[in-house]
């Protein structure tokens, strides 16, 4: 998992939960695997345990993580699919719109941009871990 950026506009708990999502999406924490405890997150990232709990609870509420009493926290079955769906829904707003905005600022045409996208797809084909299943 990536570190916490304490200068980011995003609250720390949100960064933690997104970092955890990334880790689940790339398979660092597979479904049904145990994730680190609140204490481990807190010590590792030097954050208050209440903040760590708030971050993890965001994913508990979405049923991506579940708690087993006395045993710890685990990645739920179907978590990857759930996260992928959620990320797809926000993909356009998060990435495409800002990309187009920047492209316009630099005077890159729609044609040129789609060329770049195609080229990038080609270069990265085969090395993509999150291929369609």
């Amino acid at each position, binding site marked *: 998992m990536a570190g*916490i950026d*304490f*200068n*980011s*506009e*995003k*609250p*720390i*708990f949100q960064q933690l939960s997104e970092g955890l999502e990334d880790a689940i999406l790339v398979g660092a924490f597979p479904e049904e695997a145990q994730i680190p405890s*609140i*204490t481990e997150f*807190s*010590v590792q*990232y*030097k*954050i*208050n*345990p*209440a*903040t760590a709990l708030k971050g993890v609870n965001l994913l508990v509420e979405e049923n991506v993580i579940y708690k087993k009493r006395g045993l710890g926290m685990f990645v739920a079955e179907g978590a990857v699919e759930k996260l992928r769906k959620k990320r797809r829904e926000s993909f356009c707003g998060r990435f495409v719109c800002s990309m187009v*905005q920047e492209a316009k*600022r630099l005077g890159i045409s729609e044609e040129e941009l789609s060329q770049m996208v195609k080229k990038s797809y080609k270069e990265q084909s085969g090395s993509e871990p999150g291929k369609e299943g």
Partner: protein
Amino acid sequence: MGISVEQVAKRFHTVQALKGISFHLEKQKIYGLLGRNGAGKSTLLNVMTTRIFPELGKVLIDEKDPFTQEEALSQVFLAGEQNCYPEGMRVREAFRWSKVFFPGFDADYAKRLGESFGLPEKTKIRSLSTGYASIFKLVTALSVNTPYVLLDEPVLGLDANHRELFYRLLLEKYAQHPFTVVISTHLIEEIASLLEEVLILKEGKLLCQEPVEELLSRGYTVSGNTCLVEQYVQGRQVLGTDQIGGLCSAYVLGAVDPESLPEGLELSRLDLQKLFIQMTS
């Protein structure tokens, strides 16, 4: 339960150090006590542990008055500016004596912590360097196992590695046995993420007591071209600005609305240190 400070005032000769301060600290939370030099932080911590008598007001620890009920006092440990051990005492003996005053003191744990910091056990307390004098206090504070631990400038003279080690150990200890921690410090940036709540003192008064996350969400920073920033902040409540060349950062109070942000301006979070500086200058 918790610590209640009610209308506490204290004057030293002509200086009114505390001007009627009231607040309540809950159990098992990590608090930051922030204030500029002379704001009254140390005086406040000393009053809370009966090392200084307040002129007015009172302190209650779990609803008991520590000035009259000794058992209330034994619930609190202050790692303060003053060393309370005889100066000729060696570190090892000091740990032994701590057990007498604080029955919950874990000598084995203290020994292990001391070793991880490289604290020399046989050295006399008065011969410790500034950094190791701080470390000695920190090790004691983490080993006393009282429900309330107050740390006055805990990382004074510590190098970056030792500060990092201390923050980790504190969080580990807190996770295993939650207790109330109050940390007064000038190194706000380093410690901000550890804190759940902050109390800000200014000139002997309590400016605010608020969860860090809430305090930081009261505003935001916009940076970019000075003209653009100046235009943007028109009609908004600005805490302050920093300028460098043609670039400007403005600290704005209010909710962020990324949609209304003109192109070319960047949005970032308020940081506790900047907010503190703007609030207390």
